[in-house]
């Protein structure tokens, strides 16, 4: 009887403590969560609503329900009999963007994997310098980096001048305002995103496994593709996602290097909120882009889960 009272008092104190902790945590989280919920997540809800409205005459929206934005994405109304005709214009912009983003991802992988491997096999002090050199461009303005790329790939840019002086070409190569320019620009923009995660997984690589491979008479290529690459797979997948997603939604690169002629999804969306004044269609296109991104992330999560259950 006498032993029970202190026990309940203790339990009450612990319970009180726990409640205090919950309250403190809620207060601490409040500012960050409020700002992000209000400024980043709530607007996504508004975008969903807008995508089902009718465009206003001077931009904005008129509050009339309509699914036209989604219909417009695939079809065009025939001006004579109002029937729907398949229109490939927007689908082809999406396909072009996916193609360019995939190409840039592959390009970044081909450049980024050997670089990450090279860094991971360097002595520790040198690694930090290399990593710093790879990360630094990420923190410099993407617009200025893209502009700098524009300067060197122009017809009268330094690359063409050097090639002409070397006598390799007689007239300048037209790279700027082509798909090639956008492709180069995307690789250049997002290359650090490929190198860093691959490095992170290669850094932990146990080289005795590589040695075992050589001992079993594997040649370099076999060791690379049957030992090193499988062990670096999580980093490779992460790098590919980190390059593909921003590549898909790129705005600045196609704007500057594609010259506004070679549109990607990002520019198409921005145009609907600018000159085209069709906010509902722009909202719908943005949501379709987001759906694509979520699809990629889901596929990755599913693959990761299946990989984990296979191993476990």
């Amino acid at each position, binding site marked *: 009887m006498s032993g029970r009272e202190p026990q309940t008092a203790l339990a009450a104190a612990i319970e009180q403590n726990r409640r205090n902790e919950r309250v403190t945590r809620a207060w601490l989280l409040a500012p960050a969560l409020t700002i992000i919920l209000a400024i*980043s997540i709530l607007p996504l809800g508004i975008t969903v609503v807008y995508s089902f409205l009718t465009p206003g005459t001077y931009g904005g929206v008129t509050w009339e329900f309509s699914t036209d934005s989604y219909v417009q994405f695939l079809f065009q109304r025939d001006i004579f009999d109002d029937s729907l005709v398949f229109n490939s214009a927007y689908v082809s912009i999406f396909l072009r963007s996916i193609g360019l983003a995939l190409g840039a991802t592959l390009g970044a992988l081909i450049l980024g994997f050997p670089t990450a491997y090279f860094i991971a096999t360097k002595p520790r002090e040198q690694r930090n310098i290399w990593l710093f050199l790879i990360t630094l461009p990420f923190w410099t303005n993407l617009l200025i980096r893209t*502009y700098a790329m524009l300067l060197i790939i122009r017809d009268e840019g330094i690359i063409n001048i050097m090639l002409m002086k070397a006598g390799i070409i007689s007239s300048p190569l037209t790279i700027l305002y082509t798909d090639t320019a956008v492709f180069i620009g995307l690789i250049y923009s997002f290359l650090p995103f490929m190198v860093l995660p691959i490095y992170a997984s290669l850094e932990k690589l146990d080289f005795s496994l590589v040695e075992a491979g050589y001992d079993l008479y594997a040649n370099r290529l076999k060791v690379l593709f049957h030992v090193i690459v499988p062990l670096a797979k999580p980093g490779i997948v992460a790098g590919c996602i980190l390059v593909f997603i921003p590549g898909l939604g790129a705005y600045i690169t196609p704007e500057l290097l594609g010259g506004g002629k070679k549109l990607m999804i990002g520019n198409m969306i*921005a145009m609907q909120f600018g000159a085209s004044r069709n906010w509902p269609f722009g909202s719908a296109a*943005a949501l379709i882009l987001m759906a694509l991104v979520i699809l990629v992330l889901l596929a990755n999560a599913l693959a990761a889960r299946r990989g984990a259950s296979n191993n476990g």
Partner: protein
Amino acid sequence: MADPTTAMPASTQPRQRRRLVRDLKAMPGFTATAWLCIVTLYLPILVLIAFSFNENRSVVLWTGFSLDWYAKALENDGIRNAAWVSVKIALFATVISTIAATMAALATTRTKAFAGQGLVYGIINQPLMIPEIVTAIATLSLFALVKKVTGLTGIGYLMLAHAAFCIPFAYMPIRARLETMTLTLEQAAADLYAPPLKVFTLVTLPLLGPGIVAGAMLAFVVSLDDVIITLMIAGPGETTLPIYILGAIRRGITPEINAVSTILVAVSVLLVMLLFLVQRRMQR
């Protein structure tokens, strides 16, 4: 009779193996690729910087060193206004996002694991996961609605939008710092009857200092460099430096743009180098 292993000269086998072991890690062409990456990443920027010091108006031919374009850029009212707008927005966004991120980092590391922790991480990192153009047009839609209802205009919208996308950048280093800090010192202070507020201001905060500085610097750089969100929601008279540069590039390439761009790159690089040093001190 002739055993193949003994037929082989005895000395070649170990030597061959040693050669293999010595460049066990080497892969042909990988070093060259790494250097190619560095050249690709740095050559364009270096060319831009070099031509910002070119005496000639041409952005093609080098004729001599000069600081004229910097003088021209600094005299330009458009550039000066844009720089001032950029700094104002970046300072506001940095202060707000760093405070919010510090509090959130304390909540997610200094209290016990809780239900919904994954969701909280998801929300804080949300601005990083969605394509910037989507965030930009979504924020534009919200602000257009708010403006219509309240009639309020001004630079506040831009400041708030920047604060929102700066939070995850400020949050990362602060949380990383908290995770490597042991609770021992804080517990010792509490054992010596320091009230919680004193423990926080005299022990936790000074230890957390480098993390907060790192977070604030990242937030500042990210805000200063933003293009897409700013482009979509900036009203008249709210031109930031990157937006000014974008407009100038669209009008035509001039050496003045090279000079302003170089200054902006220099600011980011200096801040990130400082950050690198701060983080190295943190590791020690």
